[in-house]
């Protein structure tokens, strides 16, 4: 153990249960990388971590402006946590704009670490600030550490032989070094990362290492800091962990699905924020036989995936809301031809181009209802980065079992967040059984392409198989034979059958569990889906500490709903039901219409996740209102 912080100069060490840090700078400052590395170091140290990336839609918005600010927030903790933190304990700001944009979320008395060199007359002007906040005393209520990071960085790599510009770009590692020291983080994981990342670029490797250490030693020797902080290891369930991002977990889940089904994945996709990383990740793993196809447009992406499924591959496509809108007609075709297909929507703020890099859950209606005709398909939502893995697997299981397209909902928050993942052993994962018909299933050697099994799925007969030639298409099918049919009675029957098939998925998947209410006596029920999981979970926990008991139901299955959901609402009949969503109440509406339950919705459409406090307040208000009515 060399650099795990044991401050050599005796300084006060303060134990903290958890800390929330936000790194903020220009989008070219490398703040995402800095945050990711700090997260990694914390996770390896043994903390529970949860992160959130917040970056502008423009790749390099003009330097120094407020709309070019890129932020990365993480919470690391000595106990289990579920959110990246409501309020920021420590803000690292590389320039005035970064300070201005993020100050509001810093807690009273919080720590600010500034790059003093970033505060010039010009950058102050770009941020629209008349005076230098470092000098005018306006930051009095915070603990401010103003450090000349750029100069120190240049000095640290003086002998390495980089140009001034190149060297200057290393300053994010200086900031990282300072923060590592302040929060007693080990440097090893970060040094390992630098070693790997700059494997072939000796000068940069050397420079970044020096700069990181320089920042760390600065903290140690400078008089600036009178105390450091320590967050102990978290008490997580035993097991082996890694850190995982949502999009990464989706990609790994898809590859696992392919391996478990013994089938190649065909991934058709058109680049779109925030889904593109799935494509990037999959394209790196061709040794699993994954075929990635960057299509000419969203429609080609889904159509090619469907064509691949017809041929016997596992067709997958992913996009975000605008792209899913373009895929709608092909989704209808997939429902009609009854082929397996996994369609992922990494939701972002809408409508239209909306807020490409921000989070929203407003595509639930689109997923469940957004096609012409009676066009049902199963819809699943992931609740956290690591849950994406499970959801990708389950979506594939449903798709092949029921011969249906399945929609998976993730969002921009999950996609770019990280958390520790107690990953499974591949030996413990159930294989995905697929049967391809190889014999005619009708009389006189006829093949009946729409003859259904006990799950109402039609046979998956592969082209190339003798005796099973058949034609599928978007025109209405005759029941059983699959021939084109315009018969009115038949159409009604087929519409019913397609619906019944999707409804049957509820019999196939697990029952809904209720969290936080073992004896069923909670005062109210909170129902959520998707990435609100962490905030709701944390709220329920904190409310419990205040003596308020809140049951939490978090839905993975949004269509069909879990088979026991009606019974759950029955159970909580006399108690308030709160549905927090990052939309105008879409799940709440679906629940009301299906279960006649008086859901109260809590909405937030600001491109940002809920804070724990927002949900706690809403829950308490609802309870108070109910109490007042009594």
């Amino acid at each position, binding site marked *: 153990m060399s650099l795990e912080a044991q401050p050599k100069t005796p300084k006060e060490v303060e134990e903290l249960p958890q800390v929330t840090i936000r790194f903020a700078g220009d989008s070219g400052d490398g703040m995402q990388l800095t945050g990711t590395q700090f997260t990694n170091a914390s996770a390896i140290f043994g903390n529970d971590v949860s992160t959130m990336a917040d970056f502008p839609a423009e790749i390099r918005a003009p330097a120094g402006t407020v709309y070019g600010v890129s932020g990365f927030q993480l919470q690391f903790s000595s106990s289990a946590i579920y959110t990246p933190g409501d309020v920021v304990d420590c803000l690292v700001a590389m320039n005035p704009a970064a300070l201005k944009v993020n100050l509001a979320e810093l807690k009273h008395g919080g720590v600010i670490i500034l790059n003093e060199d970033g505060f010039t007359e010009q950058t102050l002007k770009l941020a629209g600030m008349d005076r230098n906040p470092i000098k005018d005393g306006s930051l009095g209520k915070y603990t401010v550490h103003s450090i000349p990071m750029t100069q120190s960085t240049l000095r640290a790599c003086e002998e390495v032989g980089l140009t001034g510009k190149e060297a200057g770009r290393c300053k994010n590692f200086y900031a990282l070094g300072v923060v590592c020291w302040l929060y007693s983080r080990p440097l090893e994981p970060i040094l390992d990362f630098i070693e790997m990342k700059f494997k072939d670029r000796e000068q940069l490797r050397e420079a970044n290492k020096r700069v990181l250490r320089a920042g760390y030693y600065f903290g140690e020797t400078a008089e600036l800091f009178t105390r450091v902080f320590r967050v102990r290891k978290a008490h997580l369930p035993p097991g082996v*962990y890694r850190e995982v991002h949502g999009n990464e977990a989706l990609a790994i889940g898809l590859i*696992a699905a392919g391996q478990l089904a013994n089938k190649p994945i*065909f991934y058709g996709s058109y680049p779109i924020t925030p889904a593109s990383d799935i494509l990037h990740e999959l394209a790196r793993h061709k040794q699993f036989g994954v075929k990635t196809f960057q*299509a*000419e447009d969203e429609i080609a992406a889904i159509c*090619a995936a469907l*064509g691949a499924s017809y041929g*016997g591959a596992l067709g997958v496509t992913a996009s975000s809301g605008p792209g899913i809108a373009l895929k709608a007609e*092909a989704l209808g075709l997939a429902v009609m031809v009854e082929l397996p297909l996994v369609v992922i929507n990494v939701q972002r703020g809408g409508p239209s181009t909306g807020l490409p890099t921000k989070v929203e859950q407003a595509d639930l209606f689109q997923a469940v209802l957004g096609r012409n005709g009676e066009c049902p398909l199963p819809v699943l939502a992931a609740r956290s980065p690591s849950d994406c893995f499970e959801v990708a697997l389950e979506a594939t299981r449903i798709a092949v079992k029921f011969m249906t397209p399945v929609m998976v909902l993730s969002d921009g928050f999950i996609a770019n967040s990280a958390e520790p993942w107690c990953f499974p052993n591949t030996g413990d994962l159930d294989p995905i059984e697929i049967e391809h018909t190889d014999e005619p299933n009708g009389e006189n050697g006829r093949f009946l392409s729409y003859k259904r099994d006990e799950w109402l799925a039609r046979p998956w007969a592969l082209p190339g198989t003798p005796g099973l030639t058949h034609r599928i298409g978007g025109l209405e099918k005759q029941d059983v034979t699959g021939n084109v049919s315009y018969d009115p009675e038949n159409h009604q029957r087929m519409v019913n059958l397609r619906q019944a098939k999707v409804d049957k998925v509820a019999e196939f998947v697990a029952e809904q569990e209720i969290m936080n209410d073992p004896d069923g006596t909670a005062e109210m029920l909170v129902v959520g889906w998707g990435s609100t999981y962490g905030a709701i979970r944390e709220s329920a926990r904190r409310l419990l500490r205040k003596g308020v008991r809140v049951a939490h139901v978090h839905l993975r299955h949004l269509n069909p709903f879990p088979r026991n959901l009606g019974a759950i609402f029955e159970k909580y009949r006399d108690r308030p039901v709160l549905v927090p969503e990052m939309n105008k109440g879409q799940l709440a509406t679906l629940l009301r219409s299906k279960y006649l339950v008086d859901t109260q919705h809590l909405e937030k459409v600001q491109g940002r996740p809920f804070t724990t406090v927002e949900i706690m307040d809403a829950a308490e208000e609802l309870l108070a209102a109910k109490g007042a009515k009594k």
Partner: protein
Amino acid sequence: MSVTEQKREYTVKDFGSDQDVRWCPGCGDYSILSAVKKVLAEAGVPPEQYVFISGIGCSSRFPYYMSTYGIHSIHGRAMAVATGLKVARPDLHTFVITGDGDALSIGGNHTIHTLRRNVDITILLFNNQIYGLTKGQYSPTSPFGKKTKSTPMGSLDQPIAPMAIALAAEATFMARTIDMHPKHLMATVKRAMEHKGTSFVEIYQNCNIFNDGALAYAQDRKVRAENVIELEQGKPLLFGKDMNKGIVSEKGHLKAVRIGEDGITEDDVLVHDEEDSESYHAMLTRMRYPELPEPIGVFRAIERPTYEDLVNGQIERVIERKGKGDLQKLIVGRSTWEVHEDEAEAGKG
């Protein structure tokens, strides 16, 4: 196709389905259907090795009338569906059946990108210069000024030349043929099928209900010889009933001439070459009736690796280098840490 597959004789009947054909009587689609079935019967490959994929339009009903595998997909998207299928299953013979509206209007983007990728599929584009299924609106190949239900005062759109688009999209095989010229039609489809890569075949097809005779100059046997040139590899571009007219290049422009007039001999006439050159092929695509006779036959046939071979080649190369993927390794990732029993407490779930 597996080698163990018995080569056996097939008849046209082996390739027809039991579905009633529902095109209008007299429609050019019938002769194309019959020609394709004949070509397949002669190829000696069983029906289950073929997949016919279509979009939407009159022509796109085609797969229902074949006894092969098939998908009647959605408007304009057949080539995208076919691309996915072919990449997943390079072993299958994949056809796309499409029309001028399907492939050049709503699905124009997929036409371009399928061609440039050179996916090994055979595209048969039935060009009747009209929207038949929707009852007679002008199409992207209808001539300027065309009066239809949707353009009572004449269409204002310049028509596009399918072959010119194919060439611009880096087509490796492009040909044109005519519904009413069965021998030529069959020979062209056969060549297209044999080509490794995307083969693009424009078929002049008569819609006798909404656009009867629009292409008669090429279809009608009585006048055809004067209005089309049958391209043949290595042969001069001659046409006319008596084959006494030819095409010469004058300062980069094509011109129809009469052999024997103005001192012109057969040696002055351009000689067809499917492989060379792009600028020559480009000139062929711009030959329009009535200014010039229109070429039919194979315009261009060059070799380039197919898309699916390239895709699968990359996979093979990676596996050769790194071995087959190890799922556990992938799941574990780069760095992990362990939480031991004694450190554990009421957990996270």
